[in-house]
């Protein structure tokens, strides 16, 4: 049974094609202003990568903030349900999922069966979301990807006192003007980000194993800062963490299809 999941996020749209327990293909595109178009585009790419067509799909599930606009899905589920599902499918021992997206952050606690026990979301404040990193990368004039890489060369990370993205910007400007080296600034930004996310994670109640998902989980600097801040290792996911919502959607699609073709 081939199934698919499509995750229309605020910044990126993702799709995963699954055959039983195996990922056949996946794709990621930048979200356009039109969620319907982004979904169609990413699904085309994922199907192509998997070497199948839409007619081969037994069931397709949508998620993400633009999920109601996806034409080709049979059912939709929240990102929280899908991230939990995707993570549990890959790593059944994980009990805490910290999903950091472009515009929000979620901490999800699972039981041994992968059912959601509790979750918390921050989508009110840009601090602790991907947007914080984006604003900082722009301010420092570097690519988002470089922020993580540069931080590895830091010798004395700067301290950002304020959590607020606006105040942190002002603080970074002061450090820039004081001539602090770029790696120290990048590391300071990552640490500020991590400390903000950790507050949400602690509030949901951390249980091992712990992982990060979402686009920000690809930033090695933030992951390292999180491990330092929480004082425990984070499990690295077997599949691109940014695809977790789409993967979970595909897993749910497989369950819903119940082995029947539709």
């Amino acid at each position, binding site marked *: 049974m081939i199934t698919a999941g499509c995750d229309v996020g605020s910044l990126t749209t993702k799709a995963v094609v699954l055959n039983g327990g195996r990922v056949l293909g996946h794709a990621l595109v930048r979200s356009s202003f039109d969620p319907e178009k982004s979904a169609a585009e990413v699904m085309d790419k994922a199907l192509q990568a998997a070497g199948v067509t839409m007619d081969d799909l037994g069931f397709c599930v949508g998620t993400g903030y633009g999920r109601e606009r996806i034409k080709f899905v049979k059912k939709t589920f929240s990102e929280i349900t899908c991230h939990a599902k995707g993570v549990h499918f890959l790593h059944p021992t994980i009990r805490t999922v910290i999903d950091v997206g472009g*515009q929000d952050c979620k901490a999800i606690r699972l039981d041994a069966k992968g059912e959601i026990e509790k979750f918390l979301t921050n989508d*009110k*404040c840009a601090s602790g979301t991907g947007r*914080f990193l984006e604003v900082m990368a722009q301010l420092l004039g570097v690519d988002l990807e470089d922020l993580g890489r540069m931080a590895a060369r830091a010798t004395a990370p700067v301290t950002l006192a*304020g959590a607020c993205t*606006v105040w942190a910007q002002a603080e970074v400007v002061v450090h820039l003007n004081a001539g602090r080296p770029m790696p120290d600034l990048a590391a300071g930004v990552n640490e500020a980000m991590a400390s903000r996310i950790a507050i949400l994670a602690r509030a949901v109640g951390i249980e091992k194993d712990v992982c990060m998902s979402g686009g920000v989980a690809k930033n090695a600097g933030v992951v390292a800062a999180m491990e330092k801040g929480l004082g425990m290792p984070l499990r690295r996911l077997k599949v691109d963490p940014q695809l977790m919502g789409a993967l979970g959607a595909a897993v749910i699609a497989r369950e819903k299809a119940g082995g029947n073709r539709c």
Partner: protein
Amino acid sequence: MLTAGCDIGSLSAKAVIMEDGVLVASHVIFARPEPEESARAVMAGALSSAGASLEDIACCVGTGYGRNSVPFARAVESEITCHGKAAQWLNPGVRTVIDIGGQDAKAIRVDPAGTVVRYAYNDRCASGTGRFLEVMAGAMGIGVDDLGSLAAQAQDPVKLSNQCVVFAETEIISLINAGRNVPDIVGGLHRALAHRVASLARSVDLAQEVTMTGGVAKNPGMFQALEEALGVKLVRVDTDPQIVGAVGAALLAWQMAGGTA
């Protein structure tokens, strides 16, 4: 007897000279990189318009975030104490002071003597401070000084769904792209800020009369929005609302030097 108050804020520095508890001169400048430099420059300006020199000042009190860098201050006091003191002195009926600065907002309850009995402040989140309006004005390419008159032209103020400055900035850009006119957006921004500040004010159990101080109080649009959000009439301070902290410092300096305020 001449006394002085010097308020070194994050964005501006203010100095006030008083003669026996009567305001004789004041001066406001943009803050310099070094707080001490700001203090010297702003005080020089105030002294020159008072026709006095530093030696003539019996006592000076420093306040504001750079208060410990005022070299000629005999004592320092918090902005909260100074704003409470001055607001009650300017309008004796005042019991609640709402001070909105460029980087923070405070709600201060005072007793009939101008002594602070309770306060709450926000300096953690830029939304709910003057910075909110500053960032939004910047995003729309309009001057902060024009915000008030634009808000007055609003017919159907927008309702923002985001509080966060960063998210709201994106939201107003979409609103402009969606064809909403600038006065309606500006009106909506004032309402949003007033709503934030009103919850801060309610947390200290708002008592009448209520006044507004700080740089944002120079914006008439904020007066109207805050009056609507609180459901009470605000008392205007009969002076530049930005110098109220410095006035309080000068009053405290006068008391310290033996005057009776």
